[in-house]
């Protein structure tokens, strides 16, 4: 999605670009409890791969763990979604795909069914419980809201084009809207900080 931004100074436009890139919270798997993993891949490896699977995100229903009312470390149903993989026994070599990731919440699920997680040989098993949380791309790239967030110049001054491409976790429109909100709240926060400063 490309939008033309007119009349805004470059600094604002770029701030929006940067926020769209990784300032909007999205879901990603954050904690993995490995129950059984006899695959060739290490637990860390499986967890890392799970973390990088983009998940569909509903920003209205969920809160970020730091802002959630539960204030618990493990989280509650408002800030955390459990996803489970249980490969079961197999007697052929097969690949586990993101389609086998079953979520406790229908809205939070893998963007694509075709993301390979690990290949299992006959007799190998994988059983994990994964917890997805909202997070910011500045903490880890798995929470990056947009793939592409590009600000390009036009011939006219103070006119820029912002192009967004997403992983599918959120739509570009959602990101843009959330991004503007985020920018506003950050500016608000900044204003607040300044006002609290004593001359």
């Amino acid at each position, binding site marked *: 999605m490309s939008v033309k931004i007119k009349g805004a100074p*470059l*600094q604002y*436009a*770029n701030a929006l*670009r*940067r926020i769209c*890139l*990784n300032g909007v919270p999205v879901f990603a798997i954050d904690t993995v409890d490995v129950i059984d993993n006899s695959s*060739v891949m*290490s*637990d*860390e*490896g499986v967890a*890392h791969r799970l973390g*990088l699977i983009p998940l569909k995100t509903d920003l209205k229903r969920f809160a970020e763990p730091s802002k959630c009312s539960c204030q618990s470390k493990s989280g509650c149903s408002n800030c955390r979604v459990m996803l489970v993989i249980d490969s079961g026994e197999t007697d052929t070599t097969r690949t586990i795909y993101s389609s086998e990731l079953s979520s406790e919440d229908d809205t939070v699920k893998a963007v694509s069914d075709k993301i390979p997680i690990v290949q299992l040989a006959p007799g190998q098993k994988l059983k994990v419980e994964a917890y997805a949380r909202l997070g910011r*791309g*500045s903490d*880890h*790239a*798995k929470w*990056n809201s947009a*793939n*592409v*967030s*590009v*600000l*390009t*110049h036009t011939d006219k001054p103070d006119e*820029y084009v912002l*192009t967004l*491409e997403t992983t599918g976790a959120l739509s570009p429109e959602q990101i843009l809207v959330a991004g503007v909100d985020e920018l506003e709240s950050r500016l608000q926060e900044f204003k607040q900080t300044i006002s609290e400063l004593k001359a």
Partner: protein
Amino acid sequence: MSDTSNKRWPIIQDLLKREGIARQHLNSFDEFLERGLQSIIDEVAQIEIENAEYPYKIQLGKVKLQQPRMMELDGSITHITPAEARLRNVSYSAPIMMEASVVEDGKILESRFVHIGDIPVMVRSNACILHNFSTQKLIEHGEDPNDPGGYFIINGSERVIVGLEDLSYNKIIVDKEKVGGNDVFKAKVYSSIVGYRAKLELVMKNDGLIVARIPGSPVDIPVVTLMRALGLEADREVAAAVSLVDSLQNELEASFEKAADVQTTKDAIVYISKRIAPGMLEEFQIKRAETLLDWGLLPHLGKHQENRREKAQFLGEAACKLIELKLDWISPDDKDHYGNKVIKFAGQMLADLFRTAFRNLVRDMKYQLERSGQKRGINAVAAAIRPGIVSDKLNNAIATGNWGRGRVGVTQLLDRTNYLSTISHLRRIQSPLSRTQPNFEARDLHPTHFGRICPSETPEGSNCGLVKNLALSAIISVNVSPEEIIEKLYDLGSVHFTDAKEDLKRDGTRVFVDGRLVGYYKDGEKLVESLRELRRSSKIHPHVGISFHKSSVEGATKRLYVNCNAGRVLRPLIVIKDGKSLLTPELIDKVSKKLMSWNDLLRMGVIELNDANEEENCFLTLDDKDTKKYTHLEIFPSAILGAGASIIPYPEHNQSPRNTYESAMAKQSLGFSTPMMNTSTYVRQHFMWYPQTPIVTTKAMNLLGLEDRPAGQNCVVAVLPFDGYNIEDAIVISKAAVDRGLGRTFFFRIYEAEAKQYPGGMRDNFEIPNAEDNIRGYKGEKAYRLLEEDGVIATESPATGGDILIGKTSPPRFMEEYREFESKGPYRRDTSIGVRPSETGVVDTVVMTQSNEGGKMYKIRVRDMRIPEIGDKFASRHGQKGVIGILARYEDLPYTAEGVIPDVLINPHAFPSRMTVGMFMESISGKAAAQRGTKFDGSAFVGEKMDEIKTALEGSGLKYSGKEVMYDGRTGKAFPVEVFMGVVYYQKLHHMVADKIHARARGQVQMLTKQPTEGRARGGGLRFGEMERDCLIAYGASMILKDRLLDESDKAEIYVCERCGLVAYHDVKQRKYVCRVCGDKAKVSSVSVAYAFKLLLQEMQSLNVAPRLMIKERV
């Protein structure tokens, strides 16, 4: 248009695929087992048991090798596989069985195969059980199907016998030296038969007199006298042995004059004997001289009296070359010419070792059997053999690299950092030359290295040019029986030198086989032709080297050398006949379709193998279009590089040292070294999570299997400074890329513990040490918390420095005397194995097995995830190394209008002085490859050309220059200039901050000096060295100086007697200070000094020196 030589690539491909990477090791070892072993035993042939009452002989017969096996503690035998040997820390070796017969009065009474020792078996050799296994079967046996073999497994560790370069044997090498302004001419021969070497030197000084220097003779012997002693009495005979050309004979005048007093053979021997053994009995002197002539002089021609004539002839030839050199008819031989070198591999090295070991065994047998005269028969013989003599000698030598006679470092631990480092290690060649001496010429690249030795791959520093690597096209010759060749030569009409007529001798060509004159032939050039024809029609072995030497000077001697020896470096070339290459497109097609092998081409005479000497007779071309005038066509230009340099794309565009750096660095890159990670038992091992094959590859990379065992990742690289975070060769890496798994590796370390059994029934126990028991070195409950009941940690438990992995207790080191009233029982020591202090990780695998000594053995593998961090080292394939300067935030990085954000930012200053243009070419071809959707071929000299790149890039709307408009991620502004960006393959090198980071406040001190320890592993301090000290002195910062060197180091209070100046002490019982010298009169004061100083005083006292400290009150 790709290079025309690309068509010939299938030949090299087939050659290396079929022969494998370690062919030179395997050939050498197989030959040793097949013939070397037997010939060493045949040399001894029989053992005479000189017993007064009952003399008999033991006749030694055939040897054969059994399957590799190990003997368990209980004496049972287990047939083992290499994987098992590695896992259980045992040697992969096979028993040698030799037929021994008891012979009495010439009759064989009994015979039997007896075990004479174990010989380590080279993995993948004919004796190895893996020989001829299919891929599937190799996997079932726990082997990497792509493992080249060529190494030994000794006590579980893989050891390579690195190829050793040596001067050719039995070859006359003439040289000119300047001594005090005068020319001195020398002819040297290293005469050698298996395992025995003797050097002979002929020297001609100003006066024209030629003298011989023989080992065993303290003085020089005139060559004419020596020849007389060997049976050439008449002057005419002597002169004829040199040459029949008058101008050459004239040069002998001085030599004849010198030897004028000695005219007969007998006199000559007496003359020599007087000089080598002066002052002895005449009879004895003569005997010594005869031994010298038969054993010390040119032993390769034989050690018997009947060989003397031939030796004289050989001396004549040496003198002839010397004179020709003096007359400037020929030029001095080049010692660095690769035709004058041979490379010794495992087989030859083991032969040396086995000979001495076997002789020791025989001596020991003889001694035992002679002493126990009563018992006889084959059973007694079998009982007298101690196989350990051979087994231990071989095992120890390979395990330590100690070859005896001062040769150390012959074997090395096989480098398993990545697949390339393994391959490269197996193709390494070492020179015996001292690394401390300059030896400039020997280190230089020589024209004859072309196609044999890699021009780029050599270490920097002291070993530069002495350690080399075989080129891909190099093939090491194997031994060929010279008898057959000699027969062929006579069939072709060569005349033996004793039968040759005078004119043939004068004008004909001298024919040598392995340095031995076999005869004369009228027209040398014609003989060369017919010999080569025979070789091309595979009537003689393809490894036989045929070279013809002719000087341009009229009358100079023509020589034809035929070489059959092993260890010459050959290289394949396409034969051009009648101006046309014999390699037709149809043949290439057949080879690429696998209907034909390169061996067939060899047999058909389409290609042939040439050594460096024969290549001197060739006229080579690279161009298959213009083959007139030429004799041979090069097969493939890239194959002149070795394994290490073969991974560099477009290396011909780099400054040459950069390729050398990269060849060294590629061996440190982390990747996918083996698919058998789960059973891997290497003590240290790295493993990359997401290795990639390079998008710009080379033909050799694929061929060597490096695309199946990659070590690196393709990164989007922009050449751009970034706020100073990439100055001085630092690189900026995108944090997002790192989050997504870029450069992520595992580090595995294996910890081992073995429960040993000690004499007296004591043994080690695996258990959780109990605080209540009397255990010395108990580490506190916390350290053992991860152990399970059996004393071993569970898999997947996270362990950090100091945590115990295996709990173990051992009996006391020394059994103390029994103390009856000791309240406590006998103590035990805690010998638990814990994670190294500065490391952490997760327990990956726990293996329990039985060791060689029969004890229970655990191997525990701990894995540690290594995410790239600031300070980790990375490099591209062009010697452009750097450490991470910052993990830059995703939103701060520059971006293109397309939204591409680079993974790596490299500073533009990395290029102008280093001139690694190849990296730019890789960058844009990588970009083009990404657009095109297929890999680019960046092979040296023949890679895809720049117009291909242009098409691919411009086709997708990118600029051929590789430059793009980029925006600064922090400001959103476009950079005022375009930025060069492309795809470059980056390697993560195994120097990581996690392995090196170190700091210390307080900590351990050394026991002897009480100064802080040194090194990270011991939690040591950072040395405040001399130069740092100098700085403080210059500043006059005396208190800081004292603080560093005394207070924070080994400050100690000592008591000094002011009266005598000697060290006193404080007696705690009497509560007073005592000076043993002055007694009551002493006045003792306390002084603070460095403990090392106190130590010095005491050490001096132990040497009977009394150091006295004259102390005064501080004012």
